Every structure is written in structure tokens, then in C-alpha cells.
């Protein structure tokens, strides 16, 4: 046993051999109240289960197959993936992508392949204790999960993956371009459910792509993350995937609503800018997307004549380090600025090489993250952001 496991084993607070036999529950004659109580509960429950099954449903215990997530019966193999998508991090919480970046102190670079595009990303979960962080991005419609863990444990990735591959005979080392990675082919759990995995290191993150796909498919997803990690557009796309003035929330589930409805969905009144360049009377369309709770909701307003759109995301917790991490990742595209006494992010115009031509200012305000985007540079967009701040007071 490895040293750390051996030490933990030594700290085992309850050893089976130390359990007092007289206190053990069991079938058969009992000698202690504790044993009688436990056995009585077990037997009573078993009998009750039998009777209920027979009387109410006319079935035997053998026919009670299938289970529900979150019940004591436990998940099945398929539900393991469902559970991973629904709540993949114990102790973690659902966050926005920007907050997720703060948890791992790095941008969350999403893949962009024929299988998964940034806009396909579903709920994002994060956990952090300050020093270490974990983010899980789920793709419920694709049965795919990507986890980003900081720091990468084990030092050199190649030697680490070599070490792991010795423990998993079916696994093998591959290269994602020049990046060493570990491919773990699908193998069944005891429910005969198959999920494959690709692990690799990027930006001191351990990134794992896993899902119900063959190795080649998972590898293409992992390769996309590697490719986009060095591509400035990927960071921007992660922040604003495929957004345009005509369609500021590119997710297919986004819908056009009234400003009041968008405010209600967001749980905060949407404050529009009012400057000499753009004001409430210039408002075009209003959009909202989310699952019903403010923390999972994004709203957007457009000003078509000015070529500007503003996105308001709910459930945002301001993090100085989150914006600094994004800027540090790509100095060509981002720059931290001070706005209202806090760190904000300026997105430089023309930073996106995929066809977008937006500049932007991203800042936090009253539990929202607000992104002002348009075909302009920081000088034009900053007063718009400041106006929103001023008018929100």
C-alpha cells in the first residue's frame, strides 16, 4: 500500500476486529438491546417491504428493478452519468462560466467540434478551497462531461500518465498534437455501461473528457480543447459563445421577452445605459435564457442602431482573481481595468479571429455579471458600462 494510504489506514477509527460481538446486529438469538433493536428494525422493514410489495403491487422483491437518483437504492450505471451531469461535484455549487474560471484560476476552455460546441455546454459546477479548484462542465444533451482540476497533481504529465497507465492495463498514452495524454478506453462497470476517458494537462490543469463515446471521438474533443487553449478566440468564445447583436444569447433555448419579464427572470431590475451615444430609447430586442432561477439566467438587450448588446448574467460572485486569470491567459485579447473601484475586464476589439469583431467591457454589479459588447473599443464602451453603474445607484 502506498505510504499515504498506509498512514490513513493506520488512522482507521473503527476496526472490525475491535467491534464487540455482543453489540453486533444479526439474525438469530440476541443478547443486547442494541442488537435486538437493529435486528428488529431490519426484520420489520424486510417483512414490511415484502408485504407491501405483494399486497399493493402483487410483486416479489425480485421485480423491483431500477432506481431513482438520490434514493438509498443507488444509481444504476446509466444514472451514474446522469448524476454526473446533474450534480457532479459533491460540495460544489452551480456557477457561471466566469465564476468557474475563478475557481480554477484559469479560463475554462471549451471544445468546439462537430460533437460539442461551446453553446452546447449545460450546467457548470465548481468547487474551490482557495488553493485547489475543480470545475465540471456538463453537456447533458451529449452525455459528455469535462472536468478541469487545478493544480495538475504529480508534476510531469508524461511520467504521471505513464504511472497511471500501469495501473490500468487497457489504457495507453497518446499525443494531442504535442501534448501527452492518457486514453482510457471504455470499459464496463458492473452494470455493463461503457464510458471512455481522455486525460491531459493544460495550463496546470488536469483536464478529463469522459463520455459514452469511442476513443477517437473523445480524443477529438480533447484535441479541440488543447488547440483552443492557445487560441485567443477560444477564451472569448467561452465568455461569449457565438453571440451577435441580432442574437446576443446564442443558445437555442433563448427567447425574446419584454424588459420586465427579463428583469423578473434575472431577479434584478435590468438597468440600461443612458449616454449621449446610447440610451433606453434605442433599445431593440430583449432576450432571456435560463432554467428558471436567477443564478441560472442570462438576459440580454440589444441596441441595433448602435451595434451594441449587453448581457446580464445572474448568480455572479465577484472575483478579482477570475478576471485577472482571464487577462493573464491572453494579454492580446484582454486587459484588466478598474471600474467602480473593482477589477473589470476589457475585451480588446478585433481580438477574435473567428469572425467576431467585438470589443467589450465585462464587470460585476449587484450579483450580476454585465458584459457590454459592440463594434467599438474600450474608449467607447467604458462610458456605457459606467452609465449602467451610475444608474443602478
Amino acid at each position: 500500500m502506498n505510504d499515504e494510504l498506509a498512514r490513513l489506514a493506520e488512522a482507521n477509527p473503527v476496526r472490525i476486529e475491535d467491534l464487540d460481538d455482543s453489540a453486533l446486529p444479526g439474525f438469530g438469538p440476541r443478547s443486547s438491546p442494541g442488537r435486538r433493536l437493529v435486528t428488529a428494525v431490519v426484520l420489520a422493514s424486510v417483512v414490511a417491504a415484502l408485504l407491501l410489495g405483494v399486497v399493493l403491487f402483487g410483486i416479489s422483491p425480485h421485480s423491483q428493478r431500477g432506481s431513482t437518483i438520490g434514493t438509498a437504492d443507488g444509481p444504476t450505471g446509466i444514472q451514474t452519468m446522469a448524476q454526473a451531469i446533474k450534480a457532479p461535484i459533491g460540495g460544489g455549487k452551480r456557477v457561471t462560466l466566469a465564476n468557474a474560471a475563478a475557481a480554477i484560476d484559469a479560463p475554462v476552455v471549451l471544445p468546439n467540434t462537430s460533437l460539442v460546441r461551446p453553446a452546447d455546454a449545460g450546467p457548470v459546477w465548481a468547487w474551490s478551497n482557495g488553493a485547489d479548484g475543480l470545475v465540471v462542465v456538463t453537456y447533458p444533451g451529449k452525455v459528455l462531461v469535462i472536468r478541469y482540476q487545478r493544480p495538475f497533481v504529480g508534476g510531469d504529465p508524461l511520467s504521471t500518465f505513464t504511472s497511471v497507465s500501469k495501473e490500468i492495463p487497457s489504457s495507453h498514452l497518446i499525443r494531442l498534437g504535442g501534448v501527452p495524454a492518457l486514453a482510457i478506453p471504455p470499459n464496463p462497470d458492473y452494470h455493463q455501461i461503457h464510458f471512455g476517458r481522455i486525460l491531459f494537462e493544460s495550463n496546470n490543469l488536469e483536464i478529463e473528457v469522459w463520455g459514452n463515446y469511442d476513443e477517437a471521438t473523445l480524443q477529438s474533443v480533447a484535441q479541440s480543447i488543447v488547440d483552443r487553449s492557445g487560441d485567443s478566440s477560444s477564451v472569448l468564445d467561452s465568455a461569449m459563445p457565438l453571440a451577435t447583436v441580432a442574437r446576443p444569447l446564442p443558445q437555442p433555448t433563448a427567447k425574446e421577452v419584454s424588459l420586465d419579464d427579463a428583469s423578473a427572470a434575472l431577479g434584478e431590475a435590468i438597468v440600461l445605459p443612458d449616454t449621449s451615444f446610447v440610451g433606453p430609447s434605442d433599445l431593440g430586442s430583449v432576450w432571456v435564457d435560463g432554467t428558471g432561477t436567477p443564478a441560472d439566467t442570462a438576459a440580454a438587450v440589444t441596441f441595433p442602431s448602435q451595434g451594441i448588446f449587453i448581457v446580464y448574467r445572474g448568480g455572479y460572485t465577484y472575483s478579482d482573481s477570475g478576471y485577472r486569470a482571464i487577462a493573464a491567459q491572453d494579454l492580446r485579447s484582454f486587459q484588466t481595468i478598474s471600474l467602480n473601484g473593482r477589477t473589470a475586464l476589457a475585451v480588446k476589439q478585433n481580438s477574435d479571429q473567428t469572425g467576431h469583431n467585438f470589443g467589450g467591457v465585462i464587470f460585476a454589479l449587484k450579483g450580476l455579471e454585465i458584459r457590454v459588447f459592440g463594434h467599438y473599443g474600450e474608449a467607447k464602451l467604458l462610458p456605457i458600462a459606467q452609465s449602467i453603474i451610475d444608474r443602478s445607484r
Partner: protein
Amino acid sequence: MEEDFQRLFTAYNRHVLAYALRRCNERADAEDVVANTFTVAWRRFADAPADELRLPWLYAIAARVLANQRRSARRLLALRLRLREQPEAPQPERGELAEVLIALRELRPEEQEILRLAAWEGLTNAELAVALDCSENAATIRLHRARKRLAEQLVKEEPATGHSVTE
């Protein structure tokens, strides 16, 4: 089937009780876990894996029972005082053992649990896979990852002792 189930109970009730005692503050709570675990096991006995994997299967059920107990505890203030939010083992008196438990608590709950299952319940990777309801490969990688994190945490907490932490 009743005889099979009785054999299961006789063979493993001690193990499940130990598992529960390691994760509960109160013996009464641990006994509740045992009772509820075997009740669920009875209901799902038809789904039980092969004999050699039935103990980790029981641990998987016990983990769910514990989670449900904690959810109930959050709803009931009185129980909340008796149950901990996260599974935590009693602190040993000796300092060095306390260190490893403190390091353990710095990890994520899932990492803590797989390490406990490996170190305290003594499960193999194949058994971990059943207990955690994942593939053996997934269990292996999770354990590897958690082990590394525990080792790093131990180093962080005892930089001056020179205690050997190796793969």
C-alpha cells in the same frame, strides 16, 4: 432467497456497522444506517452483483443511506446536532494520525470517500468500482488522483518533519 439474504446479513453486518461507525458520531445513527442499508439491500437483492462484490455493493447502499440521513438531519434541527454534514472520522489521540485525518479533510468529499474506502474498508479497485458505481478504470483514476492529492496535502502540512511521502 431469504437464506441467501440471511447469509449476506450474517457475513457483512459487522462490516457495514464498522463502515457506518467510521462516518457517524453516534452509535445509534450507525445502527440506523445498518438497518436501513439491509432493508434497501433486501429490496434490491435481485440486482445484487456476484458474491465477491456484495460487500462493496452494500457500501454503495450505505453511502446513500448516510446521504439521506444527512438530508433529513438538515431538515431536523435535533438530528442535525447528532449527525455531521460531511462524513468525518473521530480524531485519533496520536498527533501523527490526526495529521493524516486533517489532511484528508482538506480534500473534496469524493476524494475523501474513495480514500476511506481504500484505506479503511480495504477495497480493491474492482470493489471500489462497485461501491462508487463506476467502472474499474474510473475508480482507479479517481483513487490515483485522490492519493496524489492526499500526499500533497500531507507535505503541505508537515514541511519540516521530513516525513516520506512517495508513490
